[in-house]
């Protein structure tokens, strides 16, 4: 059945490709025909997995491009198809008819809930864990339960673990995965005003004592220590120093992140740390960072006559807060359009909008907030009860919502949840033609 599964998946993949569609469907077919298909593929090359709450897509794409700069043949799920079907689709499209995958590196972004499945079915060499934040608690239940299930599935792992040194919930894997080689990355302390954000790292994951933070970078990312058991930010992390906007240094070299945002520097550091582990030349990554194009809806800037429309995907409080901080820096008048859907991929529980610090953008330059999507009223209530005193406009239809925003002569920030992103992008595309 393996051969048939590959044939059908490849053909359906080509047909979808003709219609400019990608995605998880070929993988679904292959899994139906041959449930053990991943185990039956023969991978020649290093398999690198990137998981965690935020930064998976950017980190995986930057890593894949950096490896290509280093003349490696790479297969990756660049479009973010990071669940079981999408991963199978990616691997089959890179495999021969007989199921050989001939490349130097396979770079896979893997959804946290799909990691146990991938661990069981693929020979993984390296795992990068970016961070853990509150995200879709309706799907993932409590974050602690999610992390415990990942720890259980990684317990016997003997490869390399590349861990964010500033997240207690990633550092704990160094303790719970006893046979792995662990490497850490981070960035030097930045001045920050984050005190009121929803934090997950409050208690020591090993002994339960309250953690002491010398410093917070954003959310619960920072320099921590447990005064009872000694669990703390590792000293031997590969660190970004001299961080200034996009620019940072590692040892004697200067790099530029694709975006002026601290979380993006952490993503770059994950790539550089992986390069160290692979003994590759970090200058290749430097080139990749310079030419890196952010994926759709990650700070995507579109020109609409004399104004800009900036599109941001938001899906959980921490990511949203980073976006809101960026908008808060804009001193020119602007309009904010927030599209809140509650389909399963968005999370059916919309309470996370109250854990996000929208008050940051309730400043003078924000002249109006427009809300749309299946929970437009809920989004509007968030603004009202947060104390936004100017106009809050609700539009069910996305075209109407964009039109309402364009009636102002100002730049527009569009915040869209996962399933709202592509429809919103095409509505914007429609008016820019």
């Amino acid at each position: 059945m393996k051969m048939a599964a590959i044939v059908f998946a490849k053909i359906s993949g080509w047909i979808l490709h003709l219609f400019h569609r990608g995605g998880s469907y070929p993988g679904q077919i292959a899994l139906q025909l041959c449930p053990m298909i991943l185990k039956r593929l023969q991978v020649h090359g290093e398999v690198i997995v990137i998981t965690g709450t935020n930064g998976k897509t950017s980190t995986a794409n930057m890593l894949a491009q950096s490896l290509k700069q280093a003349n490696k043949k790479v297969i990756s799920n660049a479009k973010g198809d990071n669940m079981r079907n999408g991963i199978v689709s990616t691997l089959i499209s890179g495999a021969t008819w007989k199921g050989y995958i001939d490349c130097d590196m396979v770079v896979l972004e893997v959804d946290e809930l799909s990691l146990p499945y991938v661990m069981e079915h693929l020979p993984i060499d390296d795992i990068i864990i970016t961070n853990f934040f509150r995200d879709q608690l309706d799907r993932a239940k409590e974050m602690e339960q999610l992390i415990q299930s990942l720890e259980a599935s990684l317990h016997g792992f003997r490869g390399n673990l590349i861990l964010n040194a500033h997240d207690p919930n990633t550092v704990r894997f160094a303790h719970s995965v006893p046979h792995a080689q662990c490497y850490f990355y981070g960035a030097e302390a930045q001045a920050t005003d984050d005190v009121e954000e929803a934090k997950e790292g409050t208690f020591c994951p090993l002994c339960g004592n309250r953690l002491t933070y010398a410093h917070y970078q954003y959310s619960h990312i920072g320099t921590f220590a447990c005064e009872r058991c000694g669990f703390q930010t590792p000293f031997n992390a590969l660190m970004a120093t001299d961080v200034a906007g996009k620019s940072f240094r590692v040892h004697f070299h200067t790099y530029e992140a694709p975006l002026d945002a601290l979380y993006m520097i952490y993503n770059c550091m994950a790539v550089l740390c992986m390069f160290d582990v692979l003994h590759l030349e970090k200058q290749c990554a430097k080139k990749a960072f310079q030419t890196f194009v952010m994926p759709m809806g990650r700070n995507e800037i579109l020109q609409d006559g004399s104004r800009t429309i900036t599109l941001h995907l938001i899906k959980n409080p921490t990511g949203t807060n980073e976006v809101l901080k960026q908008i808060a820096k804009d001193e020119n008048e602007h309009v904010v359009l927030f599209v809140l859907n509650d389909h399963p991929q968005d999370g059916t529980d919309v309470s996370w909008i109250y854990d996000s610090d929208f008050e940051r953008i309730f400043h003078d330059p924000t002249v109006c907030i427009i809300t749309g999507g299946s929970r437009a009223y809920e989004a509007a209530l968030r603004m009202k009860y947060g104390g936004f005193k100017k106009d809050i406009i609700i539009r069910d239809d996305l075209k109407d919502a964009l039109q309402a925003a364009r009636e102002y002569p100002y730049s527009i920030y569009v915040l869209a949840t996962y399933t709202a992103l592509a429809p919103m992008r095409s509505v914007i595309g429609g008016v820019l033609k």
Partner: protein
Amino acid sequence: MILTIGWMYHDIMNLYGDKGNIMVLKKRCEDRGIDVRISYCDIGDDVDLSAMDLVFFGGGADKEQSSLMRDLLSRKENIQKALDAGVMFLLICGGYQLFGQYYIDANGNRIDALGIFDYYTVSGKSEERCIGNIAVRCELEGQSMTLVGFENHGGQTYDVATPLGDVLFGHGNTAQKKQEGFYNGQVIGTYLHGPLLPRNPEFADFVIMKSLRKSYGEQCLEPLSDDMELAAKNIMLKRMELL
């Protein structure tokens, strides 16, 4: 008038946007010229809950919840004093569970709770976790209302003598989908997140009215414009085929 709110463990029991409830209470009071003063009652804080008009206690993850148990139990006497003094209580999810007899967590550990009420909570099997939108019909001192929210709890709460209301959609206290929450005229316990109050403005006002009673007696609240709130609620009621 001044409404004083004691907010218990605001930085630990802050799951699922529960702080939105405080935002709603504050704004709906301030819009009517009632000042709101919030006292944080976190681990180790010296706060007299009996001096408050309302005590709010939100939900948290199992692990966070267990970290505050020692502090909470040390406040038992003060909580009893607050109850005797007529302080109103709004308890969500974890906060609700901890006013019962005990809680048996997912690993089978028994955590002794405050034991103020007879109900107790047992963590269900993982497939029994109650997750999703919920609607509850309540009769509150002659006022009938339908509450909508989002529930996400593994714990099943049994032996609730006086439930808050009947489940129209979703689960409620147990996966058996019958009754939701607890209400005895002074203490409201509920599994409704969402957060609860933004889209249930009549319930928010009910809580405010009950809370003002201790210091100011019976008060009538000026009506506010609730079009947005009720539209948000009606969208969910329609989706649950209740409207």
